[in-house]
């Protein structure tokens, strides 16, 4: 019976969504903290009317957006994000701008404006309306925002881990790593091989890729953890642990990275998400999952993150 199948599918989806949210919250509980004051000053965010140069499908389930904004492309740091104002679409008005990670930054050249590239999944009202915006117009964006991934001076090697659209969160770090000559491995995780983002980017940046998927079971957390431990077990000079782990994906993935970091004794940086309104630090909408006492407002994902230190709690 069709209706029964639909109802069953709905119940399953609801169960998955609940289980995911609960696992995420559990995994992040006590895991992250604000990093000490940063060395590089953050760029002043601007708002810009950015021309939409490209807006096309990317892989099986995402959309790629290339925006011309020399100012933002020039100043954005790895792991920073933009707030995208979604224009009204056929009577539907989207009130809140949507935070999106800056996947790639391409500074202006003599004859080309600087661009930023974003990749997003069409999941709800906001991204559905965004997907309908045609190339050629301008999109209003505010950024670059937040505190991103930071390499300590002297870093020689890095392990980056991204899952799904979270790959965009860490790709800026891959760009910085390449520029700084840091030996980098990137784990690309996703449901199916056809959905994996970032292969071409990694090739362009000379980043070694470990692709894992749900399809063949390689993305399973236990399997992945074991594989990475084996990969960086110190048996040969090429197999020494990375100097830093950077991760963007679900909470359980951040926890996995923190466990690896603890195992190897290296710092871990994790990029988080939160519902946002201003992106600038004044609306207090984006509380970070950091335990604080009830009389103190905790850190904010948009201003103190989105990238936090991730460490397995000792309590």
């Amino acid at each position, binding site marked *: 019976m069709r209706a029964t199948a639909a109802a069953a599918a*709905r119940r399953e*989806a*609801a169960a998955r*969504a*609940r289980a995911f*949210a609960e696992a995420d919250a559990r995994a992040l509980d006590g895991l992250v903290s604000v990093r000490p004051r940063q060395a590089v000053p953050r760029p*002043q*965010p*601007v*708002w*810009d*009317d950015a021309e939409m140069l490209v807006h096309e499908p990317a892989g099986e389930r995402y959309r790629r957006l290339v925006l011309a*904004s*020399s*100012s*933002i*492309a*020039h*100043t954005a740091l790895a792991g920073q994000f933009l707030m995208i*104002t*979604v224009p009204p679409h056929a009577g*539907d*008005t*989207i*009130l*809140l*701008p949507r935070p999106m990670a800056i996947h790639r930054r391409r500074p*202006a050249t003599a004859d080309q404006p*600087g661009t930023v590239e974003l990749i997003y999944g069409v999941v709800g*009202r*906001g991204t559905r309306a965004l997907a309908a915006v045609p190339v050629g117009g301008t999109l*209003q964006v*505010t950024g670059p925002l937040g505190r991103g991934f930071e390499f300590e001076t002297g870093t020689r090697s890095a392990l980056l881990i991204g899952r799904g659209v979270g790959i965009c969160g860490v790709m800026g770090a891959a760009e910085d790593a390449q520029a700084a000559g840091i030996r980098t491995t990137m784990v690309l995780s996703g449901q199916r091989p056809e959905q994996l983002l970032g292969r071409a980017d990694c090739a362009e940046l000379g980043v070694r890729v470990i692709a894992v998927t749900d399809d063949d079971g390689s993305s399973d957390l236990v399997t992945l953890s074991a594989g990475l431990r084996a990969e960086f077990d110190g048996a040969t000079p090429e197999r020494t642990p990375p100097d830093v782990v950077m991760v963007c994906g679900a909470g359980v993935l951040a926890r996995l990275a923190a466990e690896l970091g603890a195992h190897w004794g290296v710092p871990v940086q994790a990029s988080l998400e*939160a*519902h*946002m*309104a*201003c992106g*600038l*630090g*004044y*609306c*207090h*909408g*984006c*509380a970070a*999952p950091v335990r*604080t*006492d*009830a*009389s*103190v*407002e*905790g850190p904010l994902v948009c201003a103190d993150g989105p990238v936090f230190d991730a460490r397995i709690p000792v309590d």
Partner: protein
Amino acid sequence: MVAVRADTEFPDARAAYAAAPGAATVDLSVRIGSLTLHTPVMPASGCFGPELGALIPVAELGAAVTKTVFGSARGGNPVHRLTEIPAGMVNSVGIPSRGPVGYLATLHPRYAALDVPTIISVGGHRPSEYAPVVAALGENGAAFELNVSCPNLDRNGTDIGSDPAAIREVVAAVRLVTDKPIIVKLPVLVASIADCARAAEEAGADAVCVANSIPAMPLDALTRRPILGNVIGGLSGPSIKPIVLRLVWLASRAVQIPVIACGGVETADDALDYFSVGASAVQVGTASFARPFAAVEVARGLQQRCRDAEVGTIRELLELDAAL
């Protein structure tokens, strides 16, 4: 004024925007008690921060309004603190507050650096909690906005602002500790907005602000669980405007003091709608998130409309429209 300056090497849209305000040739100033605002447009509490000083020409606004300051320091609500549903934005940020001392130490200097008067929003959990906060804020700020959309712990958690007697108590007590203008910001869910506005006026308020967001309970469509960590949040944005318009209309007929309209203002036309039912000024909240310059646009739009119609006041503009 904090200069809005774009990186000169790679200019962004801000520079052109700030440079093109259109001459403010029409005097649209409005008085809130002893305070004169050069334009009747300001941000709504909780929807503005000094961070915007570098993004928009804040001096084109009539005032800045702070997030509500409570008596003691406390954190905000659990996540999610906000979301967007088809009916609008819903927030349950709660009241992350550092108390008046913390506010003066950290936030106020940044407000003071903006080239506009600062209206400090003050809250409390019982009528007696407001005056001490205002007293502690002392000579700082140009006016106080009393956010009475707060559960009254003395009275079973019913909003202070839905009870004319509690409003009277709050305003009378605050009146004793400050000479600065007092604005009372009323909630939507009240039996009679006229009674509430009159209570504020009679107790000595210089203006009322109508209104705050509307309490709502968004559920996740898939899981049927509350989306917000606090279960309940405040609905804001354009969909609440027709509801608030009626309240502004009723309040304006009930009191002599200015009524500041707040609810779903996105454009100069929205502001004019509110002016046409009796408002003297407007606040812009939710619209600023998607368009940080929304309030500036409203102020510029009002100037432009008056200039185009060759009139000197918004009242004249509305009369001209009505006479058409």
